[in-house]
């Protein structure tokens, strides 16, 4: 089978009912805005276009490239969809993709679909488009570089949101799940960056009219820049905080009344026996830092190479 499921698709049973419903409410509200905006700005011609574009994202996720040792990288597509189609249309397209993946091949659950749409469709589109919108008038190199950063951050934001939902549902312990999700997706994100940048570069060269003035891609308002930068900042600031000092976040969640539903009453606490995985904060902080450094370093080197190849 060519189709390889991404580890971001949460199946049913892993999120609590409360978290599932909260995510559905956020997703439904965002989508209702998206629907009213697209209804206003797009003609009936856009509806078949969005449908075909949804099929495109689904099919493009099958284009893979061998990395090493039998593993392969492929596209998730949230950032690319939003950059090419505009933010609201991109969100609707990703929603359709995630819904079909859940309904047709059980990749992701039904009750948790709200969370999956939020993580992989809405957040990724907001970051992807928001950052790209900021450099709309820039040169080709700037556009591609920012699109690459946006693609990577969108994957990381989706992973962080997934990790937080799993933790709030009492399915995983905070520190481990944040570190594991961000660690894995730091590498998956590189594949996303490479394919997004190359695909966008290809489109810019062959059909620049699709991304230029007056296209759907240029249609989003300036507010998207604020939204994109804000969500990116949250990811950048929250990730080290969540992995290095989980106590703070845990206290917030406890105050909000999440954690007591998640964990059974600890009537017999034996602290000596429960050694959490990667418990030493010093070690995990260093690990997170090293992963971050490696990733940023790789991106800088790769972008530098690309720029040199262009000029």
């Amino acid at each position: 089978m060519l189709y390889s499921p991404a580890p971001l698709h949460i199946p049913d049973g892993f999120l609590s009912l409360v978290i599932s419903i909260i995510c559905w409410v956020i997703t439904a509200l965002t989508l209702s805005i998206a629907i009213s905006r697209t209804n206003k700005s797009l003609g009936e011609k856009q509806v078949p276009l969005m449908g075909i574009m949804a099929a495109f994202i689904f099919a493009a996720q099958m284009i893979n490239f061998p990395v090493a040792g039998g593993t392969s990288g492929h596209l998730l597509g949230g950032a690319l969809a939003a950059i090419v189609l505009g933010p609201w249309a991109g969100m609707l397209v990703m929603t359709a993709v995630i819904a079909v993946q859940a309904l047709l091949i059980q990749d992701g659950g039904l009750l948790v679909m709200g969370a999956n749409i939020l993580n992989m469709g809405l957040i990724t589109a907001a970051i992807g488009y928001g950052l790209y919108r900021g450099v709309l008038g820039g040169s080709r190199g700037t556009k591609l570089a920012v699109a690459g950063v946006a693609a990577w951050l969108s994957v990381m934001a989706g992973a962080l949101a997934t990790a937080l939902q799993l933790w709030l549902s009492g399915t995983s312990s905070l520190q481990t799940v944040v570190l594991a999700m961000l660690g894995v997706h730091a590498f998956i994100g590189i594949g996303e960056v490479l394919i997004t940048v190359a695909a966008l570069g290809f489109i810019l060269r062959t059909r620049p009219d699709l991304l230029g003035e007056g296209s759907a891609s240029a249609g989003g308002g300036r507010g998207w820049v604020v939204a994109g930068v804000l969500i990116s900042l949250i990811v950048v600031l929250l990730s080290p905080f969540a992995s290095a000092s989980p106590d703070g976040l845990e206290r917030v969640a406890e105050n909000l009344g999440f954690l007591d539903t998640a964990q059974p009453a600890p009537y017999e606490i034996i602290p000596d026996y429960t050694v959490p995985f990667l418990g030493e904060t010093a070690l995990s902080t260093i690990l997170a830092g090293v992963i971050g450094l490696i990733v940023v370093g790789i991106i800088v080197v790769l972008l530098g190479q690309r720029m040199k190849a262009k000029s």
Partner: protein
Amino acid sequence: MHSDAFDRYHHGHSPIHSLDPRVKVLVTLAFIISNALLPDGAWIAFALAWIFILVANIFSQLGIGFTFRRSFIALPFALAAITVLFSIPGQPVSSFHFLMWNFTITDAGLLRFVSIVIRSWLSVQMAILLVATTEFPKIVHALNHLRVPTIITVIISFLYRYLFVLVDEVLRLLRARQARSAAAAGKRVGGNVMWRARIAGHMAGQLFLRSYERSDRIYNAMLSRGYKGELMTIHPHHFHASDRWIGAASIFGFIIMQIAGRL
């Protein structure tokens, strides 16, 4: 491989197949919500839920083990829940040493882990049965009746209609890449990872342009056949008394499960 391998519908004329798709979607959702509501360690309720699935399997004439065979899709995700084995305080069950850390599995952690995996495993089986016994366009039509916004169901319909066309396009692209990637025995082929990723990206861009241009053609073709902004069906759904009874009986069964889970 043919691209319609994505479609998981199994043709049949069983009572489950002929059930109204709206009832099937609602019962599936109610079953999954019921699972999410069950407390940890509600073994009797979990067993009842499994019996419900087995009975539905039998009535669907797909064989009693049909959903079981395909139910392991969601299993890799259990990895995400593995930390609760160690993180929830309770009586130690077993402990082991790995590298420089001691791991202790607690009884409360084990209970929570097993409950999460069972809930997920039951829920995915119900979703599998829904898709296996309902043609996808009928599911989408049911979603439309259940007040999912039209624009989303229309996008989903188009996605489903053209997915197979575009997947064939991808297969052609992949075959073309393979055909041009001949290598002498023992020689490394192609460039480095960067180069390969760029080729994959160009292929995605290529696919995008082909899809974009195809959507123009499709729209023109639809206009020429009288498209006025909405899709029509010649298969209106009719609610039968049996649909109502089966739906009500299922909901009643879920209430029994909830009570059994809390005894």
